[in-house]
């Protein structure tokens, strides 16, 4: 299966969803801590491993530090403690040249697509190719159309991002993410704000493109239902720590209160419904 027919091909053999088989780790966070200010830690001693070729979800409520993990992997921020390794190389110690080389191996899908609004869909996907390759225009044209075909949007090439629906924009952003066939794909809340059909399409595309292109993918989301359909392994983050982890079967069967609250969508539990307050209810309503 190739990227060009990733979605139109009949259901391929189910992907191997186990992490138990021996796979070399491609992405590793070792005891990573990070805070934007000294007095507020976003991540506290996070350790996680993503083996090569796997699709791993990082889940947790809003503001728990999921996106921070992606930013650490991109080198946009640096951990205050611990190590962030991609392909065995520490991101924190990379110089500018190494950082640019590292980023050329990454593809990232931003929460709301982050498409360049002054460019057409075609130019958005061609952008990284123009920036990083000397390919002639006709080859770039064919590559862009292949990427667009892979996400089912070949007919939108000349449209502006403002003319696309939310789901279509997300698929175009997905096509741009895989424009240079990255080694590692990072997805930041790819399902946010999508209707059920678009959500399912984007989810299936992420899975199939991961397998077709031999990528390693990290999916940051709080959409448990869709994630359980497509990922190999799940890490749950709460208050900056990994509080649970496991493959899909073990997560479904888990009795861990945090996992249960998340899977069942309970409003209260280990993740509190009320934001902590220094004042009592009586004081506020007196």
């Amino acid at each position, binding site marked *: 299966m190739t990227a060009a027919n990733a979605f139109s091909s009949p259901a391929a053999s189910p992907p191997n969803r186990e992490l138990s088989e021996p796979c070399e780790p491609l992405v590793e966070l070792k005891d990573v801590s990070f805070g934007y200010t000294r007095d507020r830690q976003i991540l506290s001693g996070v350790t996680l491993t993503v083996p090569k070729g796997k699709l791993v979800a990082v889940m947790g409520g809003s503001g728990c530090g999921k996106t921070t993990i992606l930013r650490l992997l*991109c080198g*946009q921020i640096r951990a205050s403690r611990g190590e962030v390794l991609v392909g065995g190389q520490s991101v924190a110690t990379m110089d500018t040249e190494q*950082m*640019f*080389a590292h*980023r*050329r191996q*990454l593809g*990232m899908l*931003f*929460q*709301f697509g*982050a*498409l*360049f*609004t002054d460019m057409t869909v075609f130019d958005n996907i061609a*952008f*990284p190719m123009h*920036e*990083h390759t000397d390919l002639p225009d006709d080859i770039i044209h064919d590559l862009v159309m292949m990427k667009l075909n892979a996400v089912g949007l070949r007919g939108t090439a000349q449209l502006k991002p403002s003319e696309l629906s939310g789901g279509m924009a997300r698929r175009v952003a997905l096509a741009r993410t895989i424009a240079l066939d990255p080694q590692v794909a990072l997805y930041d809340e790819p399902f946010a704000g999508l209707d059920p059909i678009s959500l399912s399409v984007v989810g299936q595309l992420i899975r199939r493109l991961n397998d077709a292109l031999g990528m390693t993918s990290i999916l940051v989301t709080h959409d448990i239902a869709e994630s359980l359909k497509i990922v190999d392994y799940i890490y749950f983050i709460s208050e900056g720590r990994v509080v649970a982890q496991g493959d899909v079967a073990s997560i479904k069967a888990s009795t861990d209160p945090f996992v249960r609250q998340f899977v069942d969508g309970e409003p209260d539990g280990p993740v509190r419904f009320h934001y902590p307050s220094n004042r009592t209810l009586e004081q506020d309503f007196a």
Partner: protein
Amino acid sequence: MKPALNAATRVLSSLGATVINATARAGFGARFFMALIRQSPASFMRPQLILKEIYQAGVLSLIIVLMSGLFIGMVLALQGYETLVRFGATESMGVLVALSLVRELGPVVAALLFASRAGSAITAEIGLMKTTEQLSAMEVMAVDPIARVVSPRFWGGVISLPLLSALFSTMGIYGGYLVGVRLIGIDGGAFWGQMQAAVDWQHDVMNGVVKSVVFAFAVSLIAVFEGYDAQPTAEGVSAATTRTVVTSALAILALDFVLTVFMFRGGLN
């Protein structure tokens, strides 16, 4: 005693926070400027990016600059005539209009118009690109947003504004001619002849050009910096756009005074 101590602590901590924020912003500004200079050669290697920005900032500002120049020149001629006629020196109207425009009004008013029309647009565009994560997307794609987005806009502004100032002055002089010669009836030969005799290329025209180049650097730098430093929210972009216009206007007027002191000392000698 305790409330007074608390109030004093609050004032001190607020003052400290202001100083720290201002220092941090100044440091960020200096690093931003160095990065901009460092990335500029890369922008000149891709002149189509700068040409696009010259179109956006310069060509699209032509209407407002040309129309303003025309009307200001016409008003100058009317007001000048009122004064000159008392001294029987109406033939000097060409000199009055030309010197006022090439020395002062051309560079200053064109820069103020440029800051309002193009500077605010540059800030809003970069600020919105930041808000919608387009700049982050570039970074993650191993493309430096300062080289790809900021530098072409900066140099587009630096190149556009002196040209706009020249066109402003030209239109102003033509406006003065329309009112002075065609409407009031001053002799055309005297209007142009005295202007040609009194306006010095080096002392008047080139000094005006130097002013417009300095203003171009100031306004373009303020516009791209405010956009890049904007808070990534609707309110933040709005505030950054306002800051661009206000800071640019103050910078233009302050720089104009300093430059005028050096160029045309007059009574200060």
